[in-house]
């Protein structure tokens, strides 16, 4: 039986097809988010199915998650990304007790019990200072791609402190830093540190090890290390971290059919 998890995030839509008979991921895909997100998601799902020689009728159940979950009318049910990420983490890192997800527009910290169920969670405020959006803003200011920021930060000798807790203010601060000839590599490292610091403040004193990092921002080199430094404990990177939520949604779909 094939089931699907569709994570309609703020920046990208991620899809995971799961084969319950094989007990393995059958395929996955992602595409940029857009205005008509249901159409975009449906096309991406159909494209993935076609690649695998399947059709929509072969999918027993679809669970939608992410901020756009309610907009995906073709899904059989919608579950929040907190529950889905927790389920995904349970599959890829069953020993994890704290999952940190840094996404495009929000970030979340999820505490898991020994069985992998959500014990508690927190999410960031309206401000995107601790999210991938911050990286996008900074990358644009530094004339770099988001993916390049990690390499730039790695070359920094002294990260500059970014003290603002708001992306808009921080952008102003970065403009000021550039005007004062600060090294872009130090700015990139400062921003990475700032995001890690924001997430660490969400964790507070409740970092329960092992800690696993998921979400698209986890792909930026150095992010896990920055978070580990901010938390004062090791942080493991989830495999294919951007798909964790979609994987969790697919697994929940499988369990609902079982």
């Amino acid at each position: 039986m094939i089931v699907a998890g569709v994570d309609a995030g703020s920046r990208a839509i991620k899809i995971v097809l799961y084969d319950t008979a094989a007990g393995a991921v059958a395929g996955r895909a992602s595409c940029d988010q857009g205005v008509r997100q249901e159409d975009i998601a449906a096309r991406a799902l159909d494209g993935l199915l076609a690649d695998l020689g399947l059709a929509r009728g072969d999918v027993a159940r679809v669970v939608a998650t992410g901020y756009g979950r309610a907009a995906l009318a073709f899904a059989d049910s919608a579950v929040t990304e907190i529950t889905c990420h927790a389920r995904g983490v349970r599959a890829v890192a069953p020993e994890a007790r704290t999952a940190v997800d840094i996404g495009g527009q929000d970030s979340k910290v999820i505490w898991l019990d020994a069985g992998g169920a959500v014990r508690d969670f927190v999410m960031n405020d309206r401000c995107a200072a601790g999210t991938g959006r911050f990286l996008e803003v900074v990358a644009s200011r530094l004339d770099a791609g988001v993916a390049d920021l990690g390499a730039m930060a790695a070359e920094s000798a002294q990260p500059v402190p970014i003290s603002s807790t708001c992306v808009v203010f921080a952008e102003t601060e970065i403009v000021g830093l550039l005007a004062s000839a600060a090294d872009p590599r130090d700015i990139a490292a400062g921003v990475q540190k700032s995001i890690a610091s924001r997430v660490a403040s969400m964790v507070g004193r409740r970092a329960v090890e092992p800690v696993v990092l998921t979400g698209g921002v986890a792909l930026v080199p150095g992010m896990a290390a920055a978070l580990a430094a901010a938390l004062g404990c090791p942080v493991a990177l989830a495999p294919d971290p951007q798909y964790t939520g979609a994987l969790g949604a697919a697994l929940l779909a499988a369990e609902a059919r079982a």
Partner: protein
Amino acid sequence: MPLPSVIFASSFVPPEWIEAHGLRPSRVAPRAAGAVEREGLCPFAGAFAAAADGPDVAAAVFTTTCDQMRRAAEIGGDGGRAERFVMHVPSTWQTPAAHRLYREELGRLGRFLVRLGGHGPAPGELAACMERREAMRDEVLARRPRLTSRAHGDLAMRFHETGVLPPASDTVPASGGSPLMLLGGPMRREDLGLFDTIDRSGGCVAVDGTESGEREWPRRFDRRRMGGDPAGELADAYFGHIPAVFRRPDSGLFDWLAAALRATPVRGIVVVTHPWCDAWRAEVPRIRDASPVPVLALDLAGAGASAGEGSTRVEAFLEALR
């Protein structure tokens, strides 16, 4: 062995009182770097909360002069070994009861200091502390004309933190630029960069009316009362005099502003506020209305007003004044 350090950031905590209890008062200008950061949290309060967890701090005194600072007493506390004390400084001042309450709060602070390892002031000890501090405050003001704004800012900050003054030095010349009044909230260490910006841009700070400056110093002590009731004189000189923005009503602040502008002609006023500081931000329009000279409102966002946009605004303000 050095005396245990008791840190505070409010003008209504008399250092003389702590000193007379055998402890070391330190009115800190906390660092922006390392501050506790939270959505909606005043950066100064966050910086002071972090300072309270500092390694050499025996106790931190928070006051109710602003709600953010009052509540900052509940931030952290597990990172350091410092005791925390919240002192109620009445907002009202019109009634004898408010004055009595301030005096009682000083008494409560005193008992806290004794529990911390201090002792009750010996006869004459408090009065001696008051005389010594007053002389040093006079000296800080007297040195202003001979120093750049930044050098004077550093001097005042060092005096507040350590209670001592370095030997007078006239090697740093005063800028002699357009005289300005600073007004507004308290300054973090990094905010002193504003003084540099003012010096560099052709201005000088003639009056420091921030919460870190001389506006929030006590009046001169009455020597006759100091002999008989030094604690009462101390309380009156602080509580009965300081024209603070949190007072209800805050008419004393505007009386002070008018008098200060008469006493020291300035070309403009720079009102500095921290993000989320309600008390000062709400009064900026009234200050504009009350001021006969131009007013620049400057948000001490981020690492301070010395860099970027803040610097440009100060420079433009001084260009306009010229």
